[in-house]
Structures are given as C-alpha cells and as structure tokens.
C-alpha cells in the first residue's frame, strides 16, 4: 500500500478549510482523523510490527496534531506530511525510551530500487540480498529511516527533507552517504 498521498489543489484547499475550522473547534478535526487514520497506522506499524503499540502511537500522533494545530503552517506539502513528521518523532521517542527492537519492513520493489542505486542490479542473487539485509544491522536508526523513506516508501527528496526537518539537498547528501556506507559494509561482508 502506498504511504504517500498526491492531492490536487482543490483537495489541499478543502483540507486547509477543515484545518481552519478545527483550530477553533477540535471536534471539527474528525474528517481529517477519518481520512488519515489508516495511513498513519500503517506507517507506524511498518516500524513497530505490533498492533496495539501502533494503535497507541497513532492515537498519540493525532492527539499531538490537535494540540499543535494552531501552529500548523502550510508549506507546500499535504497535511498528511505533517502527520508523518509527528509520527516519525513519536516512533523515535518510543524506541529511544524503551530500547526495544525496531522493525524494518522491506518489499521487493523497494529492494530493487535500492540495488539500482547501489549498482548491484546486474545480478540478483540470494547472497546479495542477504548481504543487504545484514548491512542494515550496521546502520543507525536515522540512517535506516532515510533508506525507508526514500526507497521503500518511494518519497521525493523534498518530502524526505520535510519529514526529517532538513533541506532537500541535505536529505540527498545524507541519503547518498548512507548508500556509500551500505556499499562499504557489503564489500567488507563479501571479503569475510
């Protein structure tokens, strides 16, 4: 399921109107909650792999969204991007406090995109895939997050930058640094 939303100008304007009403009366937030609940739940579930935990974190995300709604500013991204940003912060905070194992959900399509970037597209073997999986364990959480957002959720660098609170160029630079790191790790693993 695609975790990104593409909206027309009219849809965005309609959404902004709902946001404006919800600022005055939080009960008016219900349409946005209904619209984005599943999207946010799945986004969190991909990283936690626990149903109850995902439900709790999703509730927290919407609660924080309502509380911080007066400070929301439209910056050219759909409202869902702002919710994803809150969700990322909630997930990071949860794993920082609990120190439990974080889940990484990989699909074939995402793996292919990543392999293309790593110039490993010539041969698709089980060995290569195993090395790639292993390389993830050597990465930090924020590095894994970059690869998830860019390759496994197929987001633009601009959106990745917004979600992580950095510029588009910074997001690009960071992503390619992580890719270099993965390449290095895979080489080292091959030598062994």
């Amino acid at each position, binding site marked *: *399921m695609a975790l990104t939303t593409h909206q027309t100008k009219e849809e965005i304007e309609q959404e902004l109107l709902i946001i404006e009403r919800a600022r005055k009366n*939080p*009960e008016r*937030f*219900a349409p946005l*909650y*209904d619209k984005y*609940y*599943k999207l946010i*739940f*799945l986004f969190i*579930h*991909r990283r936690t*792999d626990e*149903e109850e935990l*995902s*439900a709790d974190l*999703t*509730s927290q995300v*919407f*609660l924080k969204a*309502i*509380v911080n709604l007066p400070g929301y500013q439209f910056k050219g991204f759909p409202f869902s991007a702002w919710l994803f940003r809150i969700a990322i912060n909630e997930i990071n905070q949860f794993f920082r406090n609990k120190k439990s*194992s*974080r*889940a*990484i*959900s*990989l*699909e*074939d399509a995402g*793996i292919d995109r990543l392999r293309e970037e790593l110039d490993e597209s010539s041969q698709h073997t089980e060995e290569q895939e195993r090395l790639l*999986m292993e390389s*993830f*364990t*050597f*990465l*930090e*959480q924020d590095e*894994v997050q970059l690869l998830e957002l860019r390759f496994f959720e197929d987001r633009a660098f601009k959106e990745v930058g917004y979600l992580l609170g950095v510029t588009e160029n910074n997001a690009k630079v960071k992503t390619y640094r992580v890719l270099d790191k993965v390449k290095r790790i895979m080489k080292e693993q091959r030598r062994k």
Partner: protein
Amino acid sequence: MNNYKINKNKPSIGTEQVLKHKDFNKVLHEYKGLYNYKNATKPFYKNVKFLGFIVLVCTVALVVMVVDREESEEPKEEKKKEEVIKQVPATVTPVIADTTTKVTTEEAAIVSKKKEPKKSVVKKNSHTIIKEDSSSLEIPNKPQTSMPVQETKGKPKTKAEVKNNKDLIYQKNMEDLEKELMERHKARDLE
C-alpha cells in the same frame, strides 16, 4: 550492530484490524483532559485574566484615591469662604415693618437719633436695649458676629441667600422690639 527486526514482503495488516482501533472520541477526550491540565498548571502571573483583573483593581483604587483627595480639599475651601463672609461687616440697612408693625416711621427715626445710652442696659434675645427712661429706646444695630448663620453642607450658599437670611433675622428682632415698645406704650397709658 543494531538489533532490527527485518520483515521481508510481510503482508500488511488488514483494514478491519486497523479500523477497530479507530476512536476519535477517545483522542478528543484525551485532548480535553490535556487542555485542562495545561490550563491548570499555567502560572498565575502568566494568566491574562489574572493580569487583567490586577490592572482593573489598580485603576479603580487610583480613581478612588484621586476622588477622595479632591473631596477632602473641598471642605477646606468652604471653611475659608465662610470665614471670609463672617469677617465682612454687615451693610444691610434696618428693615422696619410697614403697615403690619405698630412702630411708626417717626418713632423709628426718634429711636435712631438717640445714639448714646445714658443709664441702664438690658440684654434680651441677642439684641441690646438701652434704657434711659421709659421713652428712650435704641434700635439695636444689625447683629454682626452674633447673627446665626446657618451651617451649609455641600453646596455653599450664594451671597444673595446669605443676605436674605440676615434680613429675615433682623426683621424678626425688630418685631420683638416692636412688641416690647407696644407693651411699654400700654404701661405708660395705664400710668
């Protein structure tokens, strides 16, 4: 090495399972609780209502103080005015009753000519009667300091009012004098 749980091609959770956790009222309830809590823990000196109340109280206190000061200054000015009025000598001419009184104008003229009393002095009802013999009588000068001036509260009386008041008192004294004269005339007739 980090401990990640890597899931490859794991089917995503079903829509029904996702939607069973969906409860906007719960989120709203939590929000209301959080909102009240935030309000409750807000320091009172940052509370706009509290600051507004303090400003209002200060303004009212200031206004009351100013009004009080003005009111305390007003009675002093009134006293000063009264003292000035008392010090000014009375220039009111004696009023003699015309037809209603039994004292004629000729008698009044005779009485006024006799300025210097020779013998006995009788004081009666805040006016002086000087007695030489039964016919010598003097109309008292208009009372000056002894004239009772009504205490005024609040708005001071105008000069015209004060003058009228003095005239009335003087007229009253004259009536008393006339009565006395009449009694003496009767006594003289009887003799």
